[in-house]
């Protein structure tokens, strides 16, 4: 096979067939994909389905703790998990830049296969396009996913109730910090890894609290601040976080101090926020902590009656400040 991606690899001819066979289907290997039909026949699935899609343009494509491939699986799997769904099927579409080293594409494909297997999701559809050099930056990936919503679970961004405990499964800001530091321009060397991980199993670990599980959201772009603001507005409640209770990895704290960033605004790719009735909070926390991706889980705040949409942070000094929605893109191409 060629050592770099050529325009012809997207041309629909024999080169494309070779690329798909050698790089993708050999690794993904699902019978529905191998059937090579125009659409996958999913058969009867049953239950309530959740469906979501996400595009990935992260730069650089490889970063400590992950790469664009792992990210593209985790992003969609985690969106399904946030809806209380168990992920079933995934589609993966690639836009490749002419000249992309084949070894890079193979590494990304391997990551996708590993992440899908870890998440227990089947890759059943795909597409590949190649654009001329300079018309894309290495590769972009779009994934879509279908999942089945667990019985007895009904979560929604508008489901947070006053009094709810707000939980998170671990340290905040790891992904954004790792990607930022992987861009060589900053000249800061701090040892931080992305938290990029599929949260399907972690999600399942709290399904047993059933109706006490009111809302879940994965705090990606805009970090915990954006996600909590969305929950507060959608649910018309106020949310108050305890700054000291929010877990932050010491190295992330150092990097954010140097860069003048607040970890609450920095992206995560392996974190889930949960809003849980107060009486189920300890149970949910214990369940999260039992899961390997939840060992640093914590109750970080609570929902209040109002004013609707208002999010604030209590500082260790006993003062309070507003935690606003970030106005725009602080860090372009973080996922």
């Amino acid at each position, binding site marked *: 096979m060629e050592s770099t991606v050529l325009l012809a690899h997207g041309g629909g001819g024999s080169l494309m067939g070779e690329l798909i066979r050698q790089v993708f289907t050999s690794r993904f290997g699902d019978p529905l994909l191998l059937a090579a039909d125009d659409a996958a026949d999913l058969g009867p699935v049953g239950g309530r389905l959740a469906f979501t899609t996400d595009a990935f343009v992260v730069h650089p494509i490889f970063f400590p703790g992950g790469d664009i491939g792992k990210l593209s699986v985790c992003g969609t799997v985690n969106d399904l998990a946030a809806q209380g769904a168990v992920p079933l099927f995934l589609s993966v579409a690639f836009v490749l830049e002419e000249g992309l080293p084949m070894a890079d594409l193979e590494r990304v494909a391997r990551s996708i296969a590993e992440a899908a297997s870890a998440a227990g999701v089947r890759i059943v559809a795909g597409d590949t396009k190649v654009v001329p050099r300079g018309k894309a930056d290495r590769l972009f990936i779009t994934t879509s996913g279908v999942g089945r919503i667990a019985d007895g679970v009904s979560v929604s961004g508008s489901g947070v109730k006053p009094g709810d405990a707000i939980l998170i499964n671990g340290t905040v800001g790891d992904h954004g910090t790792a990607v930022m530091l992987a861009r060589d321009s900053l000249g800061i060397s701090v040892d931080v890894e992305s938290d990029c991980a599929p949260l399907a199993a972690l999600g399942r670990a709290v399904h047993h609290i059933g109706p006490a599980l009111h809302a879940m959201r994965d705090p990606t772009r805009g970090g915990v601040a954006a996600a909590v603001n969305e929950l507060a507005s959608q649910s018309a409640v106020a949310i108050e976080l305890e700054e000291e209770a929010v877990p932050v990895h010491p190295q992330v704290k150092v990097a954010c101090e140097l860069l003048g960033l607040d970890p609450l605004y920095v992206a995560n790719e392996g974190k889930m926020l949960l809003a849980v009735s107060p009486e189920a909070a300890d149970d949910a926390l214990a369940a999260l902590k039992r899961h390997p991706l939840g060992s640093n889980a914590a109750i970080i705040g609570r929902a209040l009656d109002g004013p609707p949409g208002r999010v604030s942070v209590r500082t260790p000094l006993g003062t309070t400040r507003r935690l606003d929605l970030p*106005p*725009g893109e602080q860090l372009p191409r973080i996922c």
Partner: protein
Amino acid sequence: MRLIDEFRDAALIAGLRARLAGSSIPPARLMEVCGTHTMAIAHYGIRSLLPPQVKLVSGPGCPVCVTHQRDIDAFISLADLPNIVLTTFGDMLRVPGSNGSLEARRAQGADVRVVYSPMDAVRIAQAEPHRQVVFLGIGFETTAPTVAASLLEAWALGLRNFTVLSAHKLIPPALRMLATAPDLRIDGFILPGHVSAITGLEPYRFLVDECRKPCVVTGFEPLDLAQGISMLLAHLGDGEPALDIQYSRVVRPEGNAKAREVVDRVFEPTDAAWRGMGVLPDSGLAIRPRFAELDAAKRFAGQLQHVDAHEPPGCLCGCILKGAAEPSDCQLFGTRCTPASPVGPCMVSSEGTCAAHYRYLR
């Protein structure tokens, strides 16, 4: 985290808070003149630690905010020239000129790049010798040394495609204006930590000797701020103005002579126009004639446009920068002017007073 957590220690701050709540505290209007202080005060909710008779007022501490609309327009007009790479710190990107922002120009195809250091701009000029790389020099005494060093580097490399458009400002002339303005009634100054690390104490001496205002060079952590304010109130209480350093782990009385020497080699003081404060004598830095080839104001003299510079109607940034108005006094604040859709620079910059109030204090 060592060297950070100690300065956020709740117990120590509670002690200072008790001291600040004492009945002997005189009424006072204290001004901070550093955007990082403005942000830190809002971020940590320092105002709520103070007794009601002590008011903190924000001054002209944000370099982007004090840049005159004429200069902003000139910066933006550079983006329209052919073959230009415009390099800038990120804060400038979204500042509205009379006619759009750099961000909008970039979206239309102008080559506008955010750099973290002026040295990055020099590297771009080296790597792209056929393009004219301009760095927008905005900042106070803290930024000027690195910009001066980048100019010296470009000079030593013989680069002929690197220039700086200098709109640097100096803090002491602005302090003179603020301390002597009868309507502002400032009782004391929380002096900037990092600017003072360069300047040392000498340039502030007139504030005590002539203007009789106590001044404390203060750090940026909550404990620094609480202690600096406590020191200022003590000076006000005993009626004896003094010039003190709270931030002694960083600032030495003599400042950083080496940094000042680099600035002095490249720049000379010049009268400069400040947003809201007019032209203040010797309050800006111009590139010395010897380095005229690296001066964008000279190289692009005929092409810099100063469109009909006008402040956005209704915008109170000019008054807010002097401490003559609070963001909440502005009828645009939080309605027509928000971080997502800013009208004035104080809402754009990460160190702007309006941005601080919008973000943390609404």
